[in-house]
Structures are given as structure tokens and as C-alpha cells.
């Protein structure tokens, strides 16, 4: 427990991560401590099961997609600390004074876009939206209604008429949304 873990995190690593993500060294230490506590097998990396062992995440309707987002870059289905911090850095609140890196509006939007883009083809089809909708509402809304919601949402956001939503169309649809605020998380201490 405690800062035991920070002994294993080299000074240079902290500097590199700080440069990449903009997190403070104290925050990186804290995240590392969290990372090691999630790493039940002491492998130095996390598996999907390690993530889903967090009860609150496991009951999150989009929990599977969120966990999946961590595994985008890894080849062997493990997430190391650098990847872990990089994904979390998307949710750092936007600061006016600081140069925005991973937590810019554009990056936040891209992250959200990938949540919908199940097959990674840079476009959201009606089926993909429907699948995400299904995760969010479960059994509570009939298939017909969901179908029509998906249909309408796609139609309204679609500009070029290909019945698919590209990233630019996605951004346009969220033009008036406070993405910076909604896609940020509070960092404890």
C-alpha cells in the first residue's frame, strides 16, 4: 500500500509521462499506486479481468467499451502503465493556461467517437449505434423504438448521405455540447 510503488517508478519515467500527458508527478504516483493495486497478479500490466474487477465499472452499461478503449494500442491484450495513463489523460480537465495535449476537445471527441465505432472503420453505422444504444438501455425500450431512435439520430447527423457518421459529422453533431466539461473527471488530491 501507499507509495511503495513509486519506488519502482523511475524519475525519468515520471518526467516522460508528465511531458506526454500533462499530469503532475504526484498524480502520476497516485495513478501508479492505483495501477498496481488493480494489477492483482503483479504482472506489471492489466488484463481485461483486472479492470472488470472494479464493481462500479462492471455495472457501468458501457463498461465493456470503456475497458476496450484501453486495449486499442496493445497487441497482447495487456495494458502497461504508460498506456493506462495515456488513456486516462484524455479525461484530464482542460486548462486554459496550459498547452492542451491529450485532453484537447478534439482528442476527447475522438475518444467518444471510438466508443461508438465498434469495428474501428472510422465510421459509425446504424447497427453500431444501435448496439451502443442497446448497451445503454438494456431491455427497457423496445427494439422498434430503438431502431427508430438510431435511424433518426443517424439521419440527422448524416451530411453526405452515406448513412454513416464520420468523425467530422460526429463533431458537427456535438458542436454545441460542452465536451470539455462532460468528458473530464475529477482528480482526487
Amino acid at each position, binding site marked *: 500500500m501507499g507509495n511503495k510503488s513509486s519506488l519502482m517508478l523511475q524519475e525519468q519515467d515520471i518526467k516522460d509521462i508528465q511531458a506526454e500527458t500533462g499530469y503532475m508527478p504526484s498524480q502520476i504516483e497516485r495513478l501508479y499506486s492505483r495501477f498496481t493495486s488493480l494489477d492483482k497478479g503483479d504482472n506489471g500490466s492489466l488484463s481485461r479481468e483486472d479492470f472488470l474487477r472494479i464493481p462500479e465499472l462492471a*455495472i457501468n452499461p458501457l463498461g465493456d467499451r470503456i475497458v476496450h478503449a484501453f486495449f486499442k494500442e496493445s497487441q497482447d491484450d495487456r495494458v502497461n502503465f504508460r498506456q493506462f495513463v495515456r488513456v486516462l489523460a484524455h479525461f484530464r480537465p482542460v486548462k486554459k*493556461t496550459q498547452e492542451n495535449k491529450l485532453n484537447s476537445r478534439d482528442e476527447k471527441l475522438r475518444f467518444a467517437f471510438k466508443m461508438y465505432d465498434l469495428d474501428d472503420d472510422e465510421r459509425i453505422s446504424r447497427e453500431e449505434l444501435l448496439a451502443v444504444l442497446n448497451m445503454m438501455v*438494456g431491455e427497457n425500450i423496445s427494439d422498434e*423504438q430503438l431502431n427508430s431512435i438510431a435511424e433518426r439520430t443517424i439521419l440527422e447527423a448524416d451530411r453526405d448521405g452515406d448513412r454513416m457518421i464520420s468523425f467530422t459529422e460526429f463533431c458537427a453533431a456535438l458542436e454545441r455540447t460542452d465536451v470539455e466539461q462532460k468528458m473530464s473527471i475529477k482528480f482526487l488530491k
Partner: protein
Amino acid sequence: MSFPIIDAVAALVFTVLLPPFVGIVLFVVFLASVGKTVGIRLKYVEILLYIFEFGKKRLAKKRRYLSSVSELNEEDELECNSQYESNNVFKKPDKDAHLETHEFEWSDSFQYIAKGMQTIVDDEVTKRFTAEELTSWNFLTRTNHNYEFISVRLTIFWVVGFIFRYCFLLPLRVSILSIGVGILVVFTTVINFLPECQLRKWLGYWAYLATFRLVSRAISAVVYCHNLENRPKSDGICVANHTSPIDCAILSCDNVYAFMGLIVICTYVVGSLPNSSFKRRMNKRVSMFCFDFLSGALSLVCRYHNKDNVPRQGICVANHTSPMDVLVLACDNTYDMVGQRHGGFLGIFQRALSRASDHIWFERGEVKDRYAVARRLKAHVEDPSKMPILIFPEGTCINNTSVMQFKKGTFEVGGIIYPVAIKYDPRFGDAFWNSSKYSMMAYIYMMMTSWAIVCDVWYLPPMSKREKETSIEFANRVKAEIAKQGGLVDLLWDGALKRSAPKKELKEYFQQEYSRTLKLVDDLEGEEGNQNVVRRKISKIENPREEPGKVWSNADVEKTETTSPKPKDISSENLSPYINSLDNNFSSINGIKSKVNGNIIETESKTINNDIDIVNGKEIDTEISKLSKDFETELRNRQNILENLIKENVPNNFETGLKTVKKSHFMNGEKEPERQIAE
């Protein structure tokens, strides 16, 4: 072969250190046997607190120096998404409350994403199963690894503390423990040979009490009991904040195997006594003594508050932090344990315990049978001669910061519940047993080498289930009381999450929540809403009439056209996918229509049948009686008129006239008078 230097050192150690050491041990044994304390443990705790305070100040100084550069611009980091407080996850909203509904937007998923990320960074549940975070360092390496060398003075303190704990406290505790057990073994054996007499009873009582006090010295246990008047009485259930039956079993191993022998012997002695009120009293003394001894072995310092609430009977519920909870509570009062029957070593312990008192042990298969468990608990509670039952309804150990969901089974039994809140002082050593990380032996070792175990025990006023209150509501009420008194966070999460995955229902709960805020298209339900979507789409395409199977009137279309967004530019190639989708929609609508038609026909025929039934039965009867009444009154009126006419026109032949009229009336029915009037 000999090592003169080692011999010399050993000799020195034995001559210089042994006498005071033995003296201390004997002193403690003596104190415990007469049931007195000289306040050394309390003083010890006070001194420790003073030292910790000093350490904290030094640390704060160092920290500030180290981090003053990097943490300057952290202030503006605070303004962000605070609306997703994970604490409120379970706020059950009113089912009937009117929710703001909105149409689906792409950003609806953001709240889930942000919340999910928040839980990855830090979550409410898993941290309850790991050691609590401390604000100050208590000079134990296990709580913090890189504080040791942060400043010279702190390092000195740590080294001195380390030597003190490992070279003085540990051997002292171990020897006190073994001496206590030895004494007990000797005494109980002696007592066992004595004939049944007053002396035997008195000796047994004394031996039991002394041993337990001794054991509690061995861990420097300081227990503060509050509200002793609320102590569980024998007719209730004592609910402590811990859980399950296994805990007391764990307790047995936790207090070193020698203790087991002690309990076995003690209870054997008591068990051999005839069943009487004396046996009960005896058992109380013996068990309290044993547990007191144990807590001594771990330097347990307990403060019992509100001793007037001590349970005498019934169910005692408490929150559960460590296997020591049982020890802490048993030092002050006797309880019957509830648990699963184990084999082997734990089995010996359980059998020993139940020899002296009525502990409830369940067979493996029986535990799953909730009704059997409840029945046995109920039987136990209803018998006033039995001890209060001690239950930890959380079912698992939580790390001393929160109370988790109480299993409702305990609260279904009925009877009085005696809530007990136990809060350890984390500054002296974390009492929480992280069972997934440390083995039992490692835990005991940690307890024996920590400064002391200091805990507060609050006996809360007895509670009983209100009318119309479900057992879950009652459980939550008791939990809230315990959390409030113990200064613990009241969580609704299930403690079983420590080992198993959360239930699917919780996820469904979120999904349901979200779908309730999702505005269904045009806020219409069912098929009608769906038709509306199609209508919208038609209006978008601007040519509804070209579609086959159109069922809406022009007025309908005009209405939807006014509310629809601006029509798009349409080229023929753009149109075809829309038409396709429309076809799909229409086919689905047709399906719905046929379904609806079927339904309507069924209900229609049902109502018709009902109508027929009504008509056949009552309705017709009343109709007939009404008609016949009308006929009679009509008849009487006309007869009157007729008689008047006869009186006026034929006064002389009145009698005969009347007769003929009557006769004709009877012969021709109701038509006769009419004709006569007309004449």
C-alpha cells in the same frame, strides 16, 4: 565447539534483561488474574499518540519542501466534472417522479464514459477491501515504505520503534500469551479433578476470567465500550459491524493455537457442568476471561461506550473489520456465535465452544437453506435463557472506513436487534485483515508486532422492526445508525463484491434509469410513436403519397410537416435508401397492425359477450317488470275513466252498466275501455 562471545552476550542478556522481563510478565499475569488494570495501556496509547503527532509534523514539513514546486498550479485543476459523484450511485429516485426527458443525443454516453473512467482512477468499493489510507505515519514500515528515510530524526524514531516492537513487545506478548494459557491449562485440569463443590465453581470462574484478560494484554488491546447499558441481553440478536459465523472461527486461529487449547479446555470444563443457571453464568465468566486474555495478547485497547445498552438477549449486529471484532466484543460480554460448521482445526474450536453454550453451527448444505437458518435463529432468540447471538451482517471484513450492505436474513428473524459499532483507531496499527493479501499467520504476526490495537465500541440502543417496514428497510436503518455512531461511510454496496462480480441487476438499474430519461419519439408510446417516426421521415422526403399502403389523412401529413425540420435537398440516388428503410418500417407497421387488429377483435368480442350476458340476465328481467308495471297503471287509469263515464251517462242502470263494462273489460282486454271512451 563453543562461541565464547555468543555465550557471553547470551549470559549478559539473560542476567540483565531477563529479570525485569520476567517481572513484567508476572506483574501482568497477576493484574489480569485479579481483573485490575493500572492504566499502563492507556498511558502507553497516549504516549504513542504524542509521538505520532510529532512524526506527522516532521513529515508535513518535508513534504511541503519536496512538493512546493510541482503542486503550485494544481489549483485550477479542480474545476471539472463534479456532477458524477460516485457516492450517489444508489440514490433510488422516486418511481413516480417526473423526469426531464430528452431525445437521444450523442453526448448521452459521455456521462457513462466519464463515470467509468472515474471509477478506474478511484472507486468506492475496492478501496474498502484494502488497508485504509492514513493521514499520519505511525512508524510502521507496512503502512508506508518510503517515509523511513525522509529525515534523520524520523528514521531514529522508526528504528527505536522497530526495536521496541520486535525485541520487547513481541516476546512479551508471546510469553504472556503462553503463560496465560499454561496457567489456564493447569488450573482447569486441577479444577476438573476437584469434586463438585463451591471451591470448584469459584476456581473455574476465576481461571476463565483471568485467562481472557491476559490474552487481551498480549496484544495491548485497549477497548473502549460506550453505552454499556445497551449491551445485548440474552433475548435479542447482537448485530455487530462484521459478518458471518466464520469470523469467530477465524478468531480462534488468529489468537495463536495455544488459545485454542485454552478454549477447548475451558469449555470442556464448563460443558461437563449440569445444565443450570450456574452453568450459564459460569460460561459467561469463562468466555469473557478467555477473550480478555486474548485481547491482552494483542495489546487490545477497547473503549466501551454506553454500557447500559449492552445486549443481554437477542441479536447483536456489528460492523466487521477484522477477526478481532469477536475478541473485542467478547471481552465485555458473552455471545453465542452463528456460523458454518467446519472440519479439522476449526471444528475442534467450534465443538469446544458449543460444549459450554448454545452456539449455532450449520452443516454445509444447511447454510443455503435460509429458512432453516432463520428457524434456528428464531428458536434461539425466543429462548430467554440463551446468550445473545452475535452476527456480522456484512458477511465480510471491510477496512474500518465504511459499512456495506447488511444481509437481510438477520433482520427477518424478529426480536430485538442490538446494534454495535466498532471502530478501530488506525493510528496504532491497522486491524483490518486483508484476507486476500495476507495469510492468517501473517496477520497474527502483524497484530503482535504493531503498537497496539485501540478500538471504540458503541452499544447503541436496541432497535426493533417497525410495522410496515420491510426487513431490507430495517437493515438499512440499523446500518445507518451504526455508520453514524462509528463515523463510518454508509455504503449500499454488497460486501460480497470483494470476491464475486456484481449482480447483473445493478447494471440493469442504470439502464432503466437512463431509458427513463430518454424521450421516446414525440413522447408517444408504442406503435403510435413508431408510426410518428415514419411520418416524420415521410415529411422529410416530402412525398408521402408515393408510398404504398399509406394510411394517414392529408391533415395528418400537413400537421407533421409543420413540425418537421427543414426538408433536405433530395436527389434520386439519395432517396432510394430512405425508400428502402420506409419499406422496412411499413412492413413492421403492418405486422403491428395485424397484431393490433387481432387484439382489438378479441377484446371487442369479449365486450360483446359481456353485453349479451347482461342483456340475457338482469337487464331483461327489469325490462319485463317495468313494462308490466306500466301496463297495470295504464289499465287502472282507464278503468277509472270508464267508471266515471258510466256514472255520468248511465246513473240509473249503474249496477248493470258497471257489470257489463266489467264483463266486456275482462273479455276484450285493454282495448275495450278505449273503444267505449271513443263511443
